[in-house]
């Protein structure tokens, strides 16, 4: 029995030794796992979330919004905040540069998506034409009133200058318009420009050229608002002056109403567009010249963003004016019809800008 006891003891001892070795090995492994860097464990625990966010963000960036599952789309803001907090923690506790760079890039991309433009291009178009443009125009009412006054003043100045001395006509009216219409032309020649149809095949080229010229003028009006709005004022006055000089020329031959009718088919739309563009430029110029309590760049940015929709609308109006000019000017031939079309268009524009987009009081 003693040998059995010795064996048992030995066995127990052996078992004990084995147990201690095993425990020590397990302890070492546990220690090794514990010794694996905390920041790595942090990453391993959260990697699934990061990959999920990356997949969603990648899909949205590629424009495949429809294929995104509803659950993913709903989870996006929460995932973004989760990963943002991971980034905060990682910045303070981790020195793994690759993980940090990855998280910075991922959070930036997700931030752009979560806090990006809320509407698509199509929705923005619907909102713009459904009242956004009208609201923007109404917001600029003081500048528009001022622009109209400047243009009228330019018209009066143009008339007065040419009435005093006919040679001013060449200085005021740019050469493109001066084919037959100049001081000293006979009544028949002037009338002929208004009423004959020989320019028919020049229709589209005319429309296109005038359209790009007017669009350039309008865009210059807006963009040069930068320079305190002074170029906008000058351009408004100049355009007014051109109309005033031409009115004087035709008035001398008693064709005033006919000229007004001829011009107003497209002219009401075109001059309104130039007024809007000038007003947009003036708005920016005013903000730069008198920024109030804000920094100049901030005031300029705020004014630019208020004026930009108005400007875009002005350019669209010029497209319409060019179409009216190219198609309507030669095909509508009676003064009465021209007046109706031209001033009817103006009435439509006024109704559009004043009535649309008003919230129910």
């Amino acid at each position, binding site marked *: 029995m003693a040998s059995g006891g010795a064996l048992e003891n030995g066995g127990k001892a052996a078992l004990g030794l084995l147990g201690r070795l095993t425990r020590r090995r397990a302890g070492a492994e546990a220690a090794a796992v514990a010794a694996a860097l905390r920041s790595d464990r942090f990453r391993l625990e959260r990697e699934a979330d990061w990959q999920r966010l990356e997949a969603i963000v990648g899909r949205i960036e590629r424009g495949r919004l429809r294929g995104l599952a509803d659950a993913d789309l709903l989870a996006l803001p929460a995932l973004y905040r989760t990963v943002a907090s991971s980034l905060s923690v990682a910045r303070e506790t981790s020195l793994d540069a*690759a993980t940090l760079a990855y998280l910075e890039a991922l959070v930036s991309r997700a931030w752009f998506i979560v806090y990006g433009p809320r509407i698509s291009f199509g929705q923005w178009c619907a909102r713009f034409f459904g009242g956004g443009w009208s609201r923007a125009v109404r917001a600029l009412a003081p500048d528009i009133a001022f622009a109209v006054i400047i243009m009228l003043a330019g018209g009066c100045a143009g008339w007065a200058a040419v009435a005093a001395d006919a040679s001013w006509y060449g200085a005021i009216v740019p050469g493109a318009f001066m084919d037959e219409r100049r001081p000293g032309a006979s009544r028949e020649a002037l009338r002929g420009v208004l009423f004959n149809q020989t320019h028919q095949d020049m229709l589209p080229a005319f429309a296109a050229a005038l359209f790009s010229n007017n669009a350039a003028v309008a865009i210059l009006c807006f963009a040069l608002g930068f320079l305190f709005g002074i170029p906008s004022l000058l351009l408004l006055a100049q355009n007014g002056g051109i109309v005033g000089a031409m009115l004087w020329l035709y008035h001398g031959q008693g064709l005033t109403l006919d000229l007004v009718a001829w011009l107003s088919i497209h002219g009401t739309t075109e001059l309104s567009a130039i007024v809007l563009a000038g007003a947009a430029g003036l708005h920016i110029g005013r903000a730069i010249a008198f920024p109030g309590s804000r920094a100049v760049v901030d005031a300029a940015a705020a004014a630019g963003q208020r004026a930009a929709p108005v400007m875009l609308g002005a350019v669209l109006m010029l497209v319409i004016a060019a179409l009216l000019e190219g198609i309507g000017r030669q095909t509508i031939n009676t003064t009465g019809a021209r007046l109706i079309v031209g001033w009817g268009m103006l009435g439509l524009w006024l109704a559009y800008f004043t009535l649309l987009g008003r919230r129910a009081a």
Partner: protein
Amino acid sequence: MKAAAAPLDPRRPAARRTRTILTPEGLALRFTLASRGVRAGALVIDLLAQMLLLIGLQLVLSAIARDLFGQKLALTSANQAMELLYILYVIASFVLINGWFLFFELGPRGATPGKRLVGIRVAARDGGRLSAEKVLARNLVRDIEFVAPIALFALLLPGGAWVASLAALGWVLIFPCLPLWNRDRLRAGDIIGGTWVVEAPRRRLGTLLSAAPRADAPTSAGYRFGEAELAIYGEYELQTLERVLRDGQGEAMAAVAAAICGKIGWHPPGSEEVRGFLTDYYTQLRARLEAGMRLGTRKLDKFSAAALGDYTELP
């Protein structure tokens, strides 16, 4: 205490181009402003793409026109069809040139194809939303910066008034040069629109480099370094070591291993052991430095002492 010099990534671009935006969650997001050359390149690509599209449109329309003529229509209706096609072309080109930027910059990536190719995008300067008005404003002003100088120069030069045309050109060239004089690289459109152009990097998640008893991690080669051996280097050296390990170039790794051994007084490992040696050193150095981080002491590099302090990287 040393001033905060953001020791995170030695490859980070000049600090002058870094801007920080505070998100509503209170997180400071760092952005890098795009360099001027890159922006110019993106604009060139965009303009080339627009030109190609316009040429394609012209070809399509003239093919249609040839088709019409080929069918021997009466002359007047053929003329009218031509006029209609011409008007369509003019309107389409106008819409394309002005709508290109608006459409793409309102999209989810905030970048036109040219910008996407070079990896930059538009962002709102105040950290808010990039609204349609901002994109509109910044693109409407581009006409004066880009189109006006060329148009003005072309207009004035043939007239012989070359002094006036040079003066006008010089005056108008102020606008394209605005980004050069501006700390935030804002061109006139950015100033009016309240935006700026930042880099939009995309990164892959790199593998874990530290040795650990896991299936997906490198196994430890059994080297153990003591306190004195790990205390030499700081965070900058750790980042360098990580880069070397990721690149995996044999000569670089051997050189780094030799340098480390020189500092700690060991024999350099043989060529097969270099990777294991560096992995172990990296793991243990990182463990030590991160432990220090948790206690609030950080060691920038081997020349600086471990300093108490929290350097936030907000400028």
